[in-house]
Protein backbone atom coordinates (compact mmCIF):
# COMPACT_ATOMS: atom_id res chain seq x y z
CA UNK A 1 0.00 0.00 0.00
CA UNK A 2 1.38 3.40 -0.88
CA UNK A 3 1.70 6.34 1.46
CA UNK A 4 -1.14 7.95 -0.44
CA UNK A 5 -3.45 5.08 0.21
CA UNK A 6 -2.42 5.12 3.82
CA UNK A 7 -3.48 8.71 4.36
CA UNK A 8 -6.61 8.54 2.27
CA UNK A 9 -8.01 5.32 3.55
CA UNK A 10 -7.27 6.08 7.18
CA UNK A 11 -10.09 8.62 7.21
CA UNK A 12 -12.64 5.95 6.48
CA UNK A 13 -11.11 2.65 7.50
CA UNK A 14 -9.93 3.51 11.01
CA UNK A 15 -12.34 5.24 13.33
CA UNK A 16 -11.48 7.83 15.94
CA UNK A 17 -11.57 6.86 19.58
CA UNK A 18 -14.16 9.64 19.85
CA UNK A 19 -16.77 8.22 17.48
CA UNK A 20 -18.72 11.45 17.12
CA UNK A 21 -15.66 12.99 15.42
CA UNK A 22 -15.94 10.39 12.64
CA UNK A 23 -19.54 11.42 12.05
CA UNK A 24 -18.64 15.12 11.93
CA UNK A 25 -15.88 14.54 9.36
CA UNK A 26 -18.11 12.29 7.25
CA UNK A 27 -20.82 14.93 7.26
CA UNK A 28 -18.32 17.51 6.00
CA UNK A 29 -17.27 15.22 3.15
CA UNK A 30 -20.89 14.54 2.27
CA UNK A 31 -21.62 18.27 2.31
CA UNK A 32 -19.07 18.79 -0.47
CA UNK A 33 -20.80 16.14 -2.55
CA UNK A 34 -24.20 17.68 -1.80
CA UNK A 35 -23.09 21.19 -2.79
CA UNK A 36 -21.22 19.72 -5.74
CA UNK A 37 -24.34 17.89 -6.88
CA UNK A 38 -26.35 21.12 -6.72
CA UNK A 39 -23.69 23.08 -8.61
CA UNK A 40 -23.53 20.35 -11.23
CA UNK A 41 -27.29 20.33 -11.79
CA UNK A 42 -27.28 24.15 -12.00
CA UNK A 43 -24.59 23.96 -14.67
CA UNK A 44 -26.33 21.20 -16.62
CA UNK A 45 -29.65 23.06 -16.50
CA UNK A 46 -28.05 26.33 -17.63
CA UNK A 47 -26.40 24.59 -20.58
CA UNK A 48 -29.64 22.74 -21.42
CA UNK A 49 -31.62 25.99 -21.30
CA UNK A 50 -29.10 27.64 -23.61
CA UNK A 51 -28.95 24.77 -26.07
CA UNK A 52 -32.68 24.12 -26.22
CA UNK A 53 -33.97 27.65 -25.72
CA UNK A 54 -35.72 26.59 -22.51
CA UNK A 55 -36.52 29.93 -20.89
CA UNK A 56 -38.67 28.39 -18.15
CA UNK A 57 -35.72 26.31 -16.98
CA UNK A 58 -33.33 29.27 -17.31
CA UNK A 59 -35.55 31.35 -15.01
CA UNK A 60 -35.48 28.65 -12.32
CA UNK A 61 -31.70 28.66 -11.98
CA UNK A 62 -31.02 31.95 -10.17
CA UNK A 63 -33.58 31.38 -7.35
CA UNK A 64 -32.09 27.94 -6.67
CA UNK A 65 -28.75 29.60 -5.87
CA UNK A 66 -30.06 30.43 -2.37
CA UNK A 67 -29.96 26.78 -1.43
CA UNK A 68 -26.34 26.53 -2.48
CA UNK A 69 -25.38 29.72 -0.62
CA UNK A 70 -27.10 28.49 2.51
CA UNK A 71 -25.22 25.18 2.41
CA UNK A 72 -21.93 27.03 1.96
CA UNK A 73 -22.60 29.20 5.02
CA UNK A 74 -23.69 26.18 7.08
CA UNK A 75 -20.59 24.25 6.07
CA UNK A 76 -18.31 27.15 7.03
CA UNK A 77 -20.02 27.34 10.44
CA UNK A 78 -19.60 23.58 10.92
CA UNK A 79 -15.90 23.84 10.02
CA UNK A 80 -15.28 26.67 12.50
CA UNK A 81 -17.07 24.71 15.19
CA UNK A 82 -15.16 21.52 14.41
CA UNK A 83 -11.79 23.30 14.47
CA UNK A 84 -12.64 24.93 17.80
CA UNK A 85 -13.82 21.71 19.43
CA UNK A 86 -11.69 18.98 17.86
CA UNK A 87 -8.43 20.73 16.91
CA UNK A 88 -7.99 18.42 13.89
CA UNK A 89 -4.46 17.46 12.84
CA UNK A 90 -2.84 15.28 10.19
CA UNK A 91 -5.23 13.81 7.62
CA UNK A 92 -8.23 15.22 9.52
CA UNK A 93 -6.84 18.74 9.25
CA UNK A 94 -6.18 18.30 5.55
CA UNK A 95 -9.72 17.04 5.05
CA UNK A 96 -11.19 20.05 6.87
CA UNK A 97 -9.05 22.51 4.90
CA UNK A 98 -9.88 20.74 1.67
CA UNK A 99 -13.63 20.86 2.38
CA UNK A 100 -13.41 24.52 3.40
CA UNK A 101 -11.79 25.50 0.12
CA UNK A 102 -13.88 23.14 -2.01
CA UNK A 103 -17.22 24.61 -0.96
CA UNK A 104 -16.02 28.08 -1.97
CA UNK A 105 -15.09 26.85 -5.44
CA UNK A 106 -18.39 24.97 -5.79
CA UNK A 107 -20.38 28.02 -4.79
CA UNK A 108 -18.55 29.99 -7.49
CA UNK A 109 -19.38 27.31 -10.03
CA UNK A 110 -23.00 27.91 -9.06
CA UNK A 111 -22.50 31.64 -9.70
CA UNK A 112 -21.06 30.93 -13.15
CA UNK A 113 -24.09 28.70 -13.95
CA UNK A 114 -26.38 31.64 -13.11
CA UNK A 115 -24.32 33.86 -15.37
CA UNK A 116 -24.84 31.40 -18.24
CA UNK A 117 -28.58 31.14 -17.53
CA UNK A 118 -28.94 34.93 -17.45
CA UNK A 119 -27.13 35.29 -20.77
CA UNK A 120 -29.46 32.65 -22.24
CA UNK A 121 -32.44 34.69 -21.04
CA UNK A 122 -30.92 37.81 -22.60
CA UNK A 123 -30.21 36.13 -25.95
CA UNK A 124 -33.59 34.49 -26.35
CA UNK A 125 -35.57 37.26 -24.71
CA UNK A 126 -34.27 40.00 -26.97
CA UNK A 127 -36.72 39.18 -29.77
CA UNK A 128 -34.01 38.96 -32.39
CA UNK A 129 -33.10 35.81 -34.32
CA UNK A 130 -31.47 32.95 -32.40
CA UNK A 131 -27.72 32.36 -32.58
CA UNK A 132 -26.70 29.88 -35.26
CA UNK A 133 -25.49 26.37 -34.45
CA UNK A 134 -21.94 27.18 -35.49
CA UNK A 135 -22.01 30.17 -33.13
CA UNK A 136 -23.04 27.80 -30.31
CA UNK A 137 -20.44 25.19 -31.26
CA UNK A 138 -17.78 26.32 -28.76
CA UNK A 139 -20.31 26.65 -25.97
CA UNK A 140 -21.45 23.08 -26.51
CA UNK A 141 -17.94 21.64 -26.68
CA UNK A 142 -16.69 23.56 -23.67
CA UNK A 143 -19.91 22.88 -21.79
CA UNK A 144 -19.38 19.12 -22.16
CA UNK A 145 -15.78 19.45 -21.00
CA UNK A 146 -16.75 21.54 -17.96
CA UNK A 147 -19.55 19.14 -16.95
CA UNK A 148 -17.21 16.19 -17.40
CA UNK A 149 -14.51 17.83 -15.27
CA UNK A 150 -16.97 18.64 -12.50
CA UNK A 151 -18.48 15.14 -12.48
CA UNK A 152 -15.05 13.54 -12.40
CA UNK A 153 -13.70 15.77 -9.67
CA UNK A 154 -16.69 15.11 -7.42
CA UNK A 155 -16.11 11.40 -7.93
CA UNK A 156 -12.39 11.85 -7.17
CA UNK A 157 -13.30 13.77 -4.00
CA UNK A 158 -15.66 11.02 -2.92
CA UNK A 159 -13.14 8.23 -3.53
CA UNK A 160 -10.06 10.29 -2.58
CA UNK A 161 -8.68 9.25 -5.94
CA UNK A 162 -5.52 11.26 -6.55
CA UNK A 163 -4.87 9.58 -9.92
CA UNK A 164 -8.19 10.90 -11.26
CA UNK A 165 -7.46 14.26 -9.68
CA UNK A 166 -4.19 14.46 -11.59
CA UNK A 167 -5.97 13.60 -14.83
CA UNK A 168 -8.46 16.41 -14.20
CA UNK A 169 -5.64 18.89 -13.69
CA UNK A 170 -4.03 17.76 -16.93
CA UNK A 171 -7.37 17.84 -18.78
CA UNK A 172 -7.95 21.47 -17.84
CA UNK A 173 -5.37 22.41 -20.45
CA UNK A 174 -7.77 21.14 -23.13
CA UNK A 175 -10.49 23.46 -21.83
CA UNK A 176 -8.07 26.39 -21.90
CA UNK A 177 -7.09 25.56 -25.47
CA UNK A 178 -10.76 25.32 -26.47
CA UNK A 179 -11.37 28.72 -24.87
CA UNK A 180 -8.54 30.33 -26.85
CA UNK A 181 -9.65 28.63 -30.08
CA UNK A 182 -13.26 29.67 -29.39
CA UNK A 183 -12.22 33.29 -28.94
CA UNK A 184 -10.43 33.22 -32.29
CA UNK A 185 -13.43 31.62 -34.00
CA UNK A 186 -15.92 34.08 -32.54
CA UNK A 187 -13.69 36.93 -33.66
CA UNK A 188 -13.88 35.68 -37.24
CA UNK A 189 -17.72 35.79 -37.10
CA UNK A 190 -17.53 39.40 -35.98
CA UNK A 191 -15.09 40.20 -38.77
CA UNK A 192 -17.38 38.51 -41.30
CA UNK A 193 -20.49 40.37 -40.23
CA UNK A 194 -20.64 43.19 -37.68
CA UNK A 195 -24.24 42.19 -36.83
CA UNK A 196 -22.77 39.13 -35.04
CA UNK A 197 -21.16 41.35 -32.38
CA UNK A 198 -24.01 41.00 -29.88
CA UNK A 199 -24.09 37.20 -30.06
CA UNK A 200 -20.32 36.95 -30.14
CA UNK A 201 -19.97 38.97 -26.93
CA UNK A 202 -22.58 36.76 -25.23
CA UNK A 203 -20.76 33.62 -26.39
CA UNK A 204 -17.43 34.99 -25.14
CA UNK A 205 -18.97 35.63 -21.73
CA UNK A 206 -20.35 32.07 -21.67
CA UNK A 207 -17.14 30.35 -22.73
CA UNK A 208 -15.27 32.46 -20.20
CA UNK A 209 -17.71 31.25 -17.52
CA UNK A 210 -17.12 27.65 -18.67
CA UNK A 211 -13.36 28.15 -18.58
CA UNK A 212 -13.73 29.45 -15.01
CA UNK A 213 -15.80 26.40 -14.06
CA UNK A 214 -13.01 24.22 -15.42
CA UNK A 215 -10.50 26.19 -13.33
CA UNK A 216 -12.63 25.67 -10.21
CA UNK A 217 -12.78 21.93 -10.99
CA UNK A 218 -8.99 22.00 -11.28
CA UNK A 219 -8.79 23.66 -7.85
CA UNK A 220 -11.00 20.94 -6.43
CA UNK A 221 -8.70 18.30 -7.92
CA UNK A 222 -5.73 20.03 -6.27
CA UNK A 223 -7.51 19.90 -2.91
CA UNK A 224 -8.05 16.16 -3.39
CA UNK A 225 -4.30 15.71 -3.91
CA UNK A 226 -3.58 17.87 -0.86
CA UNK A 227 -6.03 15.86 1.19
CA UNK A 228 -4.56 12.53 0.16
CA UNK A 229 -0.88 13.35 -0.28
CA UNK A 230 -0.39 16.40 1.89
CA UNK A 231 1.22 18.10 -1.11
CA UNK A 232 0.22 21.55 -2.27
CA UNK A 233 0.28 21.40 -6.07
CA UNK A 234 -1.38 24.76 -6.70
CA UNK A 235 0.26 27.27 -9.03
CA UNK A 236 2.65 24.74 -10.51
CA UNK A 237 3.45 24.98 -14.19
CA UNK A 238 2.18 21.99 -16.12
CA UNK A 239 4.98 19.88 -17.52
Amino acid at each position, binding site marked *: MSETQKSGS*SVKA*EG*HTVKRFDGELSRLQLRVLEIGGLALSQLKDALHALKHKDLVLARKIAPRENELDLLEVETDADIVSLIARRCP*VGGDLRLVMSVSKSVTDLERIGDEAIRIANIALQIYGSGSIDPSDHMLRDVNVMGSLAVDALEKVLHAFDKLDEASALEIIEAHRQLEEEFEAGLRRLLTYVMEDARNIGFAVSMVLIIKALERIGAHAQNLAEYVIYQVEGKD*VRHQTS*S
Partner: protein
Amino acid sequence: MKIREKTSSEVAFNRDYGKTVGEITSLKPRIECRNVNVYYGEKLAIQNVSLDVGCNEVIALIGPSGCGKSTFIRCLNRMNDTIIGCRVTGDIIMDGKNIYDNGVDVVPLRAQVGMVFQKPNPFPKSIFENVAYGPRIHGLVASKAELEEVVETSLRRAGLWDEVKDYLHQPGTSLSGGQQQRLCIARTIAVNPEVILMDEPCSALDPIATAKIEQLIDELRVHYTIAIVTHSMQQAARVSQRTAYFHLGRLIEVGETAQIFTNPRHQLTEDYITGRFG
Protein backbone atom coordinates in the same frame (compact mmCIF):
# COMPACT_ATOMS: atom_id res chain seq x y z
CA MET B 1 2.53 17.95 -13.42
CA LYS B 2 3.93 14.98 -11.60
CA ILE B 3 3.69 13.94 -7.99
CA ARG B 4 6.84 12.22 -6.87
CA GLU B 5 6.45 8.46 -6.85
CA LYS B 6 7.17 6.72 -3.56
CA THR B 7 10.19 4.49 -3.56
CA SER B 8 9.72 0.94 -2.37
CA SER B 9 11.76 1.69 0.75
CA GLU B 10 9.54 4.64 1.62
CA VAL B 11 6.46 2.52 1.30
CA ALA B 12 8.05 -0.03 3.59
CA PHE B 13 8.88 2.73 6.12
CA ASN B 14 5.26 3.38 6.75
CA ARG B 15 4.65 -0.04 8.16
CA ASP B 16 8.15 -0.77 9.40
CA TYR B 17 8.31 -0.49 13.17
CA GLY B 18 12.07 -1.05 13.23
CA LYS B 19 13.24 1.99 11.34
CA THR B 20 12.57 5.58 12.28
CA VAL B 21 10.87 7.69 9.61
CA GLY B 22 12.28 11.21 9.23
CA GLU B 23 15.55 12.96 9.89
CA ILE B 24 17.02 11.89 13.22
CA THR B 25 20.03 14.18 12.91
CA SER B 26 20.24 17.88 13.61
CA LEU B 27 22.44 20.45 11.86
CA LYS B 28 23.64 21.71 15.24
CA PRO B 29 23.31 18.79 17.64
CA ARG B 30 23.70 19.37 21.36
CA ILE B 31 23.09 15.77 22.38
CA GLU B 32 23.52 12.87 19.95
CA CYS B 33 21.83 9.60 20.89
CA ARG B 34 22.67 6.51 18.89
CA ASN B 35 21.23 3.01 19.21
CA VAL B 36 20.02 3.62 22.74
CA ASN B 37 18.43 0.67 24.51
CA VAL B 38 17.05 0.84 28.03
CA TYR B 39 16.25 -2.25 30.09
CA TYR B 40 14.26 -2.40 33.31
CA GLY B 41 15.53 -5.77 34.49
CA GLU B 42 14.74 -8.11 31.60
CA LYS B 43 12.20 -5.77 30.04
CA LEU B 44 13.34 -3.73 27.05
CA ALA B 45 11.75 -0.30 27.55
CA ILE B 46 13.58 1.61 24.80
CA GLN B 47 14.69 -0.14 21.66
CA ASN B 48 17.44 1.12 19.40
CA VAL B 49 16.56 4.80 19.50
CA SER B 50 18.79 7.23 17.62
CA LEU B 51 18.00 10.95 17.80
CA ASP B 52 19.78 14.30 17.94
CA VAL B 53 18.62 17.07 20.23
CA GLY B 54 19.61 20.27 18.44
CA CYS B 55 21.03 23.45 19.98
CA ASN B 56 18.43 26.04 20.96
CA GLU B 57 15.56 23.94 19.73
CA VAL B 58 12.52 22.67 21.55
CA ILE B 59 11.95 19.03 20.73
CA ALA B 60 8.66 17.49 21.84
CA LEU B 61 8.45 13.80 22.62
CA ILE B 62 4.95 12.42 22.21
CA GLY B 63 3.36 8.99 22.34
CA PRO B 64 0.91 6.88 24.31
CA SER B 65 1.51 6.04 27.98
CA GLY B 66 4.27 3.52 28.43
CA CYS B 67 5.86 4.21 25.04
CA GLY B 68 9.20 5.14 26.62
CA LYS B 69 9.31 8.89 26.04
CA SER B 70 9.89 9.73 29.72
CA THR B 71 12.39 6.90 30.02
CA PHE B 72 14.22 8.36 27.03
CA ILE B 73 14.58 11.92 28.35
CA ARG B 74 15.58 10.58 31.75
CA CYS B 75 18.52 8.94 29.99
CA LEU B 76 19.75 12.34 28.85
CA ASN B 77 20.89 13.32 32.34
CA ARG B 78 21.19 9.82 33.76
CA MET B 79 18.16 10.17 36.00
CA ASN B 80 17.51 6.49 35.32
CA ASP B 81 20.65 5.65 37.34
CA THR B 82 18.51 5.94 40.46
CA ILE B 83 16.21 3.11 39.31
CA ILE B 84 17.32 -0.31 40.44
CA GLY B 85 17.66 -2.76 37.56
CA CYS B 86 17.74 -0.05 34.92
CA ARG B 87 20.45 -0.54 32.30
CA VAL B 88 21.26 1.73 29.37
CA THR B 89 23.26 0.72 26.30
CA GLY B 90 24.20 2.68 23.19
CA ASP B 91 25.74 6.14 22.95
CA ILE B 92 24.48 9.42 24.34
CA ILE B 93 27.11 11.89 23.25
CA MET B 94 27.52 15.36 24.70
CA ASP B 95 30.62 17.45 24.03
CA GLY B 96 32.16 14.46 22.26
CA LYS B 97 31.83 12.18 25.26
CA ASN B 98 29.38 9.41 26.09
CA ILE B 99 27.62 10.52 29.28
CA TYR B 100 27.38 6.87 30.32
CA ASP B 101 31.16 6.37 30.22
CA ASN B 102 32.84 5.33 33.42
CA GLY B 103 34.21 8.30 35.25
CA VAL B 104 31.50 10.75 34.20
CA ASP B 105 30.35 12.62 37.29
CA VAL B 106 26.54 12.81 37.25
CA VAL B 107 26.37 15.83 39.58
CA PRO B 108 27.78 18.37 37.08
CA LEU B 109 26.00 16.47 34.29
CA ARG B 110 22.63 17.06 35.96
CA ALA B 111 23.50 20.72 36.40
CA GLN B 112 24.36 20.91 32.71
CA VAL B 113 21.22 18.97 31.76
CA GLY B 114 18.53 20.14 34.18
CA MET B 115 15.10 18.67 34.64
CA VAL B 116 11.61 19.91 35.43
CA PHE B 117 9.06 17.34 36.55
CA GLN B 118 5.35 16.78 36.15
CA LYS B 119 4.42 17.99 39.61
CA PRO B 120 6.09 21.15 40.91
CA ASN B 121 8.38 20.08 43.73
CA PRO B 122 9.82 23.14 45.48
CA PHE B 123 12.10 22.49 48.44
CA PRO B 124 10.51 23.25 51.83
CA LYS B 125 12.50 26.46 51.93
CA SER B 126 11.99 30.07 51.00
CA ILE B 127 11.56 31.18 47.38
CA PHE B 128 15.05 32.71 47.52
CA GLU B 129 16.62 29.56 48.95
CA ASN B 130 14.93 27.34 46.38
CA VAL B 131 16.79 29.17 43.63
CA ALA B 132 19.98 29.86 45.62
CA TYR B 133 20.47 26.25 46.70
CA GLY B 134 21.88 24.94 43.41
CA PRO B 135 24.42 27.69 42.69
CA ARG B 136 25.57 27.50 46.31
CA ILE B 137 26.20 23.73 46.42
CA HIS B 138 27.77 23.72 42.96
CA GLY B 139 30.07 26.58 44.03
CA LEU B 140 28.95 28.79 41.16
CA VAL B 141 28.95 32.04 43.15
CA ALA B 142 31.67 33.76 45.15
CA SER B 143 29.68 36.29 47.13
CA LYS B 144 26.26 37.04 48.54
CA ALA B 145 25.80 39.82 46.02
CA GLU B 146 26.59 37.44 43.18
CA LEU B 147 24.14 34.88 44.59
CA GLU B 148 21.41 37.52 44.78
CA GLU B 149 22.10 38.43 41.18
CA VAL B 150 21.85 34.80 40.07
CA VAL B 151 18.55 34.40 41.96
CA GLU B 152 17.10 37.54 40.40
CA THR B 153 18.27 36.64 36.88
CA SER B 154 16.91 33.12 37.19
CA LEU B 155 13.55 34.30 38.52
CA ARG B 156 13.38 36.92 35.75
CA ARG B 157 14.13 34.33 33.07
CA ALA B 158 11.46 32.09 34.58
CA GLY B 159 9.00 34.98 34.34
CA LEU B 160 8.40 34.96 38.09
CA TRP B 161 10.44 37.89 39.42
CA ASP B 162 7.74 40.54 39.27
CA GLU B 163 5.32 38.28 41.12
CA VAL B 164 7.66 37.25 43.95
CA LYS B 165 10.29 39.99 44.32
CA ASP B 166 8.61 41.34 47.47
CA TYR B 167 8.07 37.89 48.99
CA LEU B 168 11.44 36.20 48.44
CA HIS B 169 11.54 34.91 52.00
CA GLN B 170 8.09 33.35 51.92
CA PRO B 171 8.06 29.53 51.57
CA GLY B 172 8.19 28.26 47.98
CA THR B 173 5.26 26.02 48.79
CA SER B 174 3.06 29.08 49.44
CA LEU B 175 2.99 29.86 45.71
CA SER B 176 0.26 28.69 43.32
CA GLY B 177 0.86 25.53 41.24
CA GLY B 178 1.85 27.48 38.15
CA GLN B 179 4.16 29.76 40.15
CA GLN B 180 5.72 26.73 41.86
CA GLN B 181 6.46 25.19 38.46
CA ARG B 182 8.08 28.42 37.29
CA LEU B 183 10.05 28.45 40.56
CA CYS B 184 11.29 24.95 39.70
CA ILE B 185 12.29 26.21 36.25
CA ALA B 186 14.13 29.13 37.90
CA ARG B 187 15.85 26.62 40.18
CA THR B 188 16.94 24.63 37.13
CA ILE B 189 18.16 27.73 35.31
CA ALA B 190 20.13 28.95 38.35
CA VAL B 191 22.84 26.30 37.90
CA ASN B 192 23.47 27.50 34.38
CA PRO B 193 22.36 24.46 32.38
CA GLU B 194 22.62 24.08 28.62
CA VAL B 195 19.78 21.62 28.25
CA ILE B 196 16.46 21.57 30.11
CA LEU B 197 14.41 18.39 30.18
CA MET B 198 10.72 18.81 30.93
CA ASP B 199 8.59 15.80 31.77
CA GLU B 200 4.94 16.85 31.32
CA PRO B 201 5.58 20.19 33.03
CA CYS B 202 2.03 21.47 32.60
CA SER B 203 -0.04 18.40 33.34
CA ALA B 204 -0.92 19.65 36.83
CA LEU B 205 -1.57 23.25 35.77
CA ASP B 206 -4.61 25.21 34.65
CA PRO B 207 -4.76 26.73 31.12
CA ILE B 208 -3.49 30.15 32.22
CA ALA B 209 -0.52 28.73 34.13
CA THR B 210 0.09 26.40 31.16
CA ALA B 211 0.12 29.35 28.75
CA LYS B 212 2.68 31.12 30.96
CA ILE B 213 4.95 28.06 30.95
CA GLU B 214 4.58 27.73 27.18
CA GLN B 215 5.47 31.40 26.71
CA LEU B 216 8.43 30.83 29.00
CA ILE B 217 9.59 27.80 26.98
CA ASP B 218 9.56 29.98 23.89
CA GLU B 219 11.70 32.62 25.61
CA LEU B 220 14.08 30.08 27.16
CA ARG B 221 14.84 28.58 23.76
CA VAL B 222 17.10 31.55 23.03
CA HIS B 223 19.48 30.43 25.79
CA TYR B 224 18.79 26.73 26.23
CA THR B 225 18.03 23.50 24.43
CA ILE B 226 14.75 22.01 25.60
CA ALA B 227 13.34 18.48 25.36
CA ILE B 228 9.74 18.26 26.53
CA VAL B 229 7.56 15.21 27.09
CA THR B 230 3.89 16.02 26.77
CA HIS B 231 0.60 14.23 26.45
CA SER B 232 -1.00 17.31 24.98
CA MET B 233 -0.73 17.20 21.21
CA GLN B 234 -1.68 20.85 20.98
CA GLN B 235 1.08 21.76 23.42
CA ALA B 236 3.63 19.83 21.38
CA ALA B 237 2.39 21.61 18.26
CA ARG B 238 2.55 25.03 19.96
CA VAL B 239 5.92 24.93 21.68
CA SER B 240 8.25 22.73 19.65
CA GLN B 241 10.21 23.01 16.44
CA ARG B 242 10.71 19.25 16.11
CA THR B 243 8.51 16.43 17.28
CA ALA B 244 9.41 12.80 17.92
CA TYR B 245 6.75 10.12 18.13
CA PHE B 246 7.44 7.05 20.30
CA HIS B 247 5.48 3.81 20.26
CA LEU B 248 6.17 0.69 22.34
CA GLY B 249 9.73 1.78 23.08
CA ARG B 250 10.62 2.64 19.51
CA LEU B 251 11.11 6.02 17.88
CA ILE B 252 8.62 5.75 15.03
CA GLU B 253 8.88 9.16 13.42
CA VAL B 254 10.68 12.44 13.91
CA GLY B 255 10.33 15.62 11.90
CA GLU B 256 9.54 19.31 11.82
CA THR B 257 6.55 19.88 14.08
CA ALA B 258 4.46 21.44 11.31
CA GLN B 259 5.04 18.39 9.11
CA ILE B 260 4.26 15.90 11.88
CA PHE B 261 0.94 17.61 12.65
CA THR B 262 -0.17 18.22 9.07
CA ASN B 263 1.35 15.38 7.10
CA PRO B 264 2.85 12.60 9.23
CA ARG B 265 4.56 9.91 7.21
CA HIS B 266 4.00 6.89 9.43
CA GLN B 267 0.58 5.34 9.87
CA LEU B 268 1.11 5.00 13.64
CA THR B 269 1.89 8.72 13.98
CA GLU B 270 -1.22 9.61 11.98
CA ASP B 271 -3.35 7.29 14.09
CA TYR B 272 -2.00 8.68 17.34
CA ILE B 273 -2.19 12.40 16.61
CA THR B 274 -5.67 12.13 15.11
CA GLY B 275 -6.96 10.08 18.03
CA ARG B 276 -7.52 6.80 16.23
CA PHE B 277 -5.93 4.43 18.69
CA GLY B 278 -8.46 1.93 20.00
